């Protein structure tokens, strides 16, 4: 949204999840991109393509973990995420603050004031404690919305790709139509109808973000369903549901996991954008995006501690998920290694 917002993110989801097989990216805008209609990119599961050079006998997960660990940025991403999550969720256990009651006698205290290492905000909340609280919302909404979108999108895409014919056409045109509504506009429209609470925010963002994974998985499903082993299973009388469950989803899982990581990053950005546009979770709840937007108005009165800490926190967590996603891509998309 970014933009993505932004956007979004992406749009929605603007960062390419599959580093462009010849037409760039997986995300062929609204309408049917002529080149990508579920282009069966010879993915990780292409027969015979996935033989690692040095260690052919080792298990897929073991090997994957090793590849992941070779990517230093990915490790840094994991460390960053663990650090931020621990700060947000374990921090309040050690550092107690009152984040419900305002205290107008203690507003805009500068950092370093005894008892308030990062100062206080415009209504007297302790800024450090608030960062912890805000982090909880941002991380929870990001993870939950990313997960929701991934699950819904995977099932939708797998069913559409496997069913084929008119069911596929109807299901994917619906995806196209929803994708052509810019994400932030749709979010704001929905947020202006319901009052945004944390669960609502998850549903609103998840309800839009599943489109990307749906397209991705459909593409995989299209190429998978003509594979011999699926045909063989069908020939032995297996049902379509079984094909989706035991063959298509497990085979597409790599692409899906990589995409999910980027979804989480985008969801965190979308929460920030919605807060900035005035449709975030109302106080005393907090999230990093909302704190950052509140900090904007303080930027010119010298209250820098209200602006930079939440801004940096958002950047760090979004970067963390992008690093992790890049590392996972190395693991799952064998074809792209060492490029």
């Amino acid at each position, binding site marked *: 949204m970014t933009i993505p917002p932004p*956007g979004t993110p992406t749009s929605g989801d603007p960062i390419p999840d599959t580093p462009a097989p010849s037409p760039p*990216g997986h995300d062929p805008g609204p309408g049917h991109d002529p080149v990508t209609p579920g282009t069966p990119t010879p993915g990780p599961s292409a027969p015979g393509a996935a033989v690692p050079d040095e260690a052919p006998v080792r298990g897929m997960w073991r090997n994957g973990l090793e590849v992941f660990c070779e990517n230093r940025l990915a490790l840094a991403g994991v460390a960053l995420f663990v650090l931020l999550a621990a700060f947000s969720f374990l921090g309040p256990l050690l550092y107690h603050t009152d984040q419900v009651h305002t205290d107008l006698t203690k507003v805009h205290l500068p950092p370093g004031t005894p008892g308030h290492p990062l100062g206080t905000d415009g209504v007297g909340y302790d800024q450090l404690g608030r960062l912890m609280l805000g982090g909880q919302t941002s991380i929870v909404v990001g993870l939950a919305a990313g997960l929701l979108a991934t699950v819904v999108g995977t099932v939708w895409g797998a069913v559409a790709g496997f069913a084929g014919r008119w069911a596929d056409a109807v299901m994917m045109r619906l995806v196209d139509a929803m994708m052509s509504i810019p994400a932030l506009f749709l979010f704001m429209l929905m947020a202006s109808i319901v009052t945004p609470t944390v669960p609502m925010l998850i549903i609103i963002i998840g309800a839009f973000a599943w489109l990307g994974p749906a397209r991705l998985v459909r593409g995989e499903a299209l190429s998978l369903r003509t594979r011999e082993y699926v045909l063989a299973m069908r020939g032995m009388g297996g049902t379509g549901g079984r094909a989706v469950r035991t063959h298509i989803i497990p085979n597409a899982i790599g692409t899906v996991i990589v995409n999910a990581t980027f979804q989480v990053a985008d969801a965190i950005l979308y929460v920030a954008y919605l807060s*900035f546009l005035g449709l975030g979770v109302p106080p005393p709840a907090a999230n990093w995006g909302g704190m950052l937007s509140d900090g904007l108005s303080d930027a010119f009165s010298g209250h820098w501690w209200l602006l930079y800490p939440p801004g940096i926190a958002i950047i760090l967590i979004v970067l963390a998920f992008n690093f992790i996603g890049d590392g996972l891509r190395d693991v799952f998309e064998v074809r792209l290694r060492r490029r």
Partner: protein
Amino acid sequence: MTRYLLTRLGQALVIVILVTLITFVILHLLPGGAARAILGKEATLQQIAAFNHEMGYDRPLWEQYALYLRRLAQGDLGYSFQLNQSVGEAILQRLPKTMLLSLASTLLAVLIAVPLGVVQAVRRNRWPDYTINALALLAYATPIFFLGLLMIILFSQVWPVLPPEAPQGFTLADVLADPAGLVLPILSLTILTVAVYSRYIRSSMVDNLNENYVRTARSKGLSETRVIIGHTLRNGLFPVITLLGMYLPALFSGALVVERLFNYPGMGLLFWQAALKRDYPILLGVTLLISVATVAGALIADVLYAAADPRVRLKAGRS
């Protein structure tokens, strides 16, 4: 080509109709029903009944949808009682300004991102690639309103050369009369866009640099510059045309945030104000129009791509 064009046009039409179906459904999901949402809290029951009758909201749903479509076809997007203005008129006044913002930043972004992406692909996995990649990722991870604010601090406060607010003119000409005010809004949208584009261009170029024709060109003894600029660049840049279309939704989302931050009087600001006032006719009208613009943009991009690259239209024609 004609066949490809017609197929693609048909698809776009289906999508537009589906979008109208979505906005129609949302209109009827509005709290208190469509009439209450449009007329406001103070409307009396009689007013609501009269409005429902006048708009045909008391008829069966499919008939209402047909009416809705007919009104849209006549260019009637509804009436905003809060602005006391028809939605179409309100949008038309602001549309050119949003177009200016989007077009200018797209153009700039292409001009910046193409050389960056090419440099990255040519020097891949070396420091220029890593540096540009890191910067692009950083720009992407920064909420665009934070980025914009940092630029306001930098260019209006620390080193005061540019105004912190967008031009406030009513018409496009008024806005253009104050170019200094346009710099920061356009720049913030451009930076976000470059962050996305350069990644695509890099991978597209990398894909092409691994092709056989590049090896052939090199073994013919062509200079590296010739190989890259004469051979690879052209092929590597084709997909950028579709990228422009694909990126439109994100671009409009970004424009919404930028317009709000800089108080730029475009369609995004109109939408934002309407969201705070729960002015549903405007909200739905802008959503519909911006989606149609997205579909049209993607259509144009795809057609241009097909015109530039015969492989695309041949492949699409066959299937």
